[in-house]
């Protein structure tokens, strides 16, 4: 057979993109673990195994070469993104359920990598949030409690046991806490967005900036999203007398804003593909998330904001496709 051009060794690859995302998540995961204990690493391991298992089964069922496609790491990325959004001591079967929804329903039943209209991680998250609102808001507070050890963590996640000193206390997410607190949020690291969270947020920022620098993600998305949230927060600070909203930085550093901006909204498959579209798409997510955060019933709105904007992405693409060369 005659080989035509192009002939060159390609230098970008899907698996490379995905590996970079995993690498960029690592510092945040390490710091997270440092603050909150073994919960997250255990959940990550569980979700990784589950995601690869589901992925292999689905590829097989869909008649795709398993070996080729499983190596793209996309299922692992989805699982990690999902788990990072979940409370670290969630029962194992809930994590499994979320991974199932993410990989099997949101990804493969919609046609597999590249065809899914909805962000798989956010679908898994939203399903849990709607089905198990109580468990989904049980976060470990840092102050005044002992972080569970490794054995204890396993017992809680897999054995369903309730650790005595954690019993019934960890119900407020940092955001809930501030949304309903009457005290002004002091602008010092460590107390601004709930202890520990700002440091983790900063790690997401560092990882995300590295991804932007390596062109693994399009910088327009995080920039547009953060600008929108920032402007909204400034408006809120000026226009509202709720003391919790007085510091605009709070909105940027808490509730996964940075995580969503760099890691969730940037999922290329479900985002807009045009440059102008990406500005709009990410601004839409920022706006919706703030509306839900401030006026909605859920503590944080990024999952729903992302899903809603996923829905609009094809339309945004259509409306923002650039004028082709030589066309009026």
């Amino acid at each position, binding site marked *: 057979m*005659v*080989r*035509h*051009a*192009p*002939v*060159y*060794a*390609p230098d*970008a*690859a*899907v*698996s*490379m*993109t995905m590996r970079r995302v995993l690498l960029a998540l690592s510092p945040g995961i390490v710091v997270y673990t440092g603050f909150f204990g073994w919960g997250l690493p255990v959940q990550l391991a569980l979700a990784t195994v589950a995601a690869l298992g589901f992925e292999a089964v689905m590829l097989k069922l869909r008649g795709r070469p398993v070996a*080729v*496609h499983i190596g*793209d790491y*996309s299922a692992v990325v989805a699982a990690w993104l999902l788990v990072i959004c979940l409370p670290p001591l969630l029962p194992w079967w809930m994590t499994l359920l979320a991974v199932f929804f993410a990989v099997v329903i949101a990804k493969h039943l919609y046609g*597999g*990598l*590249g*065809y899914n209209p909805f962000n798989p991680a956010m679908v898994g998250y939203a399903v849990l949030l709607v089905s198990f609102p109580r468990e989904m808001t049980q976060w470990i507070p840092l102050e005044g409690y002992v972080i569970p050890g490794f054995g204890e963590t396993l017992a809680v996640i897999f054995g369903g046991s309730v650790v005595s000193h954690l019993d019934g206390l960890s119900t407020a997410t940092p955001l809930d806490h501030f949304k309903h607190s009457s005290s002004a949020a002091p602008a010092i690291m460590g107390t601004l967005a709930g202890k520990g969270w700002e440091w983790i947020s900063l790690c997401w920022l560092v990882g995300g900036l590295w991804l932007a620098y390596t062109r693994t993600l*399009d910088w327009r998305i995080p920039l547009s999203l953060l600008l929108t949230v920032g402007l909204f927060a400034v408006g809120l600070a000026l226009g509202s007398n709720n003391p919790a909203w007085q510091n605009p930085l709070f909105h940027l550093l808490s509730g996964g804003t940075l995580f969503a901006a760099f890691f969730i909204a940037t999922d*290329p*498959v479900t*985002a807009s*593909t*045009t*440059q102008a579209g*990406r500005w709009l798409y990410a601004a839409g997510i920022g706006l919706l998330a703030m509306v839900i955060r401030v006026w909605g019933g859920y503590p944080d709105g990024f999952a729903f904001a992302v899903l809603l904007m996923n829905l609009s992405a094809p339309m945004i*693409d259509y409306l923002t*496709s*650039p*004028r*082709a*060369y*030589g*066309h009026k």
Partner: protein
Amino acid sequence: MTAMLTSGIVVNGYRDMATRLPVARVPVCSELVLPLQQHIGTPAEPVVGSGDRVVRGQLIARARGFVSAGLHAPVNAVVLGIECRPVPHPSGLNGLCLVLAAEDGADWGSAGPEVVDPNSIAIPEPDIIRMMVRQAGIVGLGGATFPTSVKIKSGMSQPVDTLIINGCDCEPWISCDEMLLRERPGQVLAGCHLLRQSLAADRCVLAVEDDAPEMVAGLQQVIADCNSPVRLEVLPARYPSGSEKQLIHIITGKEVPSQGLPVDVGAAVYNAGTAAAVYQAVVHEVPLISRLVSVSGPGIGRPRVVEALLGTPVSELLRFCGGRTADANGLIMGGAMMGLGLASDEIPVTKGMNSILVTTPAMSQDAQGEMPCIRCGECARVCPARLAPQQLLSLIRNGDLEQAQQRWALEDCIECGCCNAVCPSHIPLAGYYRYAKGEIRKQGKARVKAQQARQRYEFRMERIERAKREREEKLRKKKEALQAANKARARAAMAEEARSFEDEM
């Protein structure tokens, strides 16, 4: 601000491969094969027959129709015949060729020498230049192979303010324009002056890329020395700056309208090699019988740019350049991005053959293989035609060519392959677009054919109908006439009767 391409990609042009040795002439081969169609337009028509003796530069096939180009004997030779031979064409089919046997001792002869002062050449009237270019069988030597005289003619009928001479070797691995501009800058400049005169263009820009510093320095020197009005524009090397529409945009800031021509925005682009050929034809009356071919790639022993007589087999070029290496695995005519794969090296050098690339497996290693599109948008970011390659891909895969064409401007894809190059899923996007454009053309042709058939059918039916109508009309008239006659006769008879009756009365 320097003018430059803002889309596209930065690629390794491998400019240092074929530029280390000077241009050398490939010795005359005993058999030369000249396809009758080596240009866009109607094939040339042979004017010699088998057994005829021809001399170097003699017309052996003449242009047929307006958009066509003639062929000339590259050396003194005897015509062996007109035969079907393998030709470099995407279809891979054979084509009609004039086959010549070079006479013993036939040599290259002398081409016009390198000019020292391009300002010193005598410049004829525009029409004379055009006629001489036509007689010399010159076509676009950058690979487009559109007959140059036709292009000049269209530039004469509409005002051209910017004449652009394209000295950018369009694709990675191709170095023939660079070597031409390094060794024969005077010829190119002289050609620029001739073309500018023929088009009455206000200004002439010679565009080159900055990844060949030696060439740039040399050109600057020559232009300064002879005080040439040609402006040298050194573009940052970026693929595909050398593509016609992109180059026009870079230099003039104007976009050629979709489906339009460069003259529509007052621009004309000629390849640097074409300019040199124009000089040879007008000043020395040497027709186009040879060209520069860059023979490069990791699979060739001694990469270099050669000057070869048209009709020389590619196998000779390869031999001349040290032969293929052990791991050579393919031949490509053109560059690494858009070139055409060749099934064999028993194919002649043609007017459009600017490069032979000898590939090795290492060049195109792809451990990953094709994956689904992850809609990353990289392809759209680099597309010089500002298309949405990922949208086109899904439309073409779904068979919706209509939509791809109407809404997403498929026809404006220049098939540059930038999208392929950046796609993390390694999808051969440009291949899809080439295929889809071919399909649309086929459908269009089929539609035209169907329309013609329908028209013919309708015409025939109409004719039959008309004949029938006419026949009926005639019949009716006859009948009427008959009836009228009968009536008249009856009346006459009646009158007769009446009269006789009266008479009897």
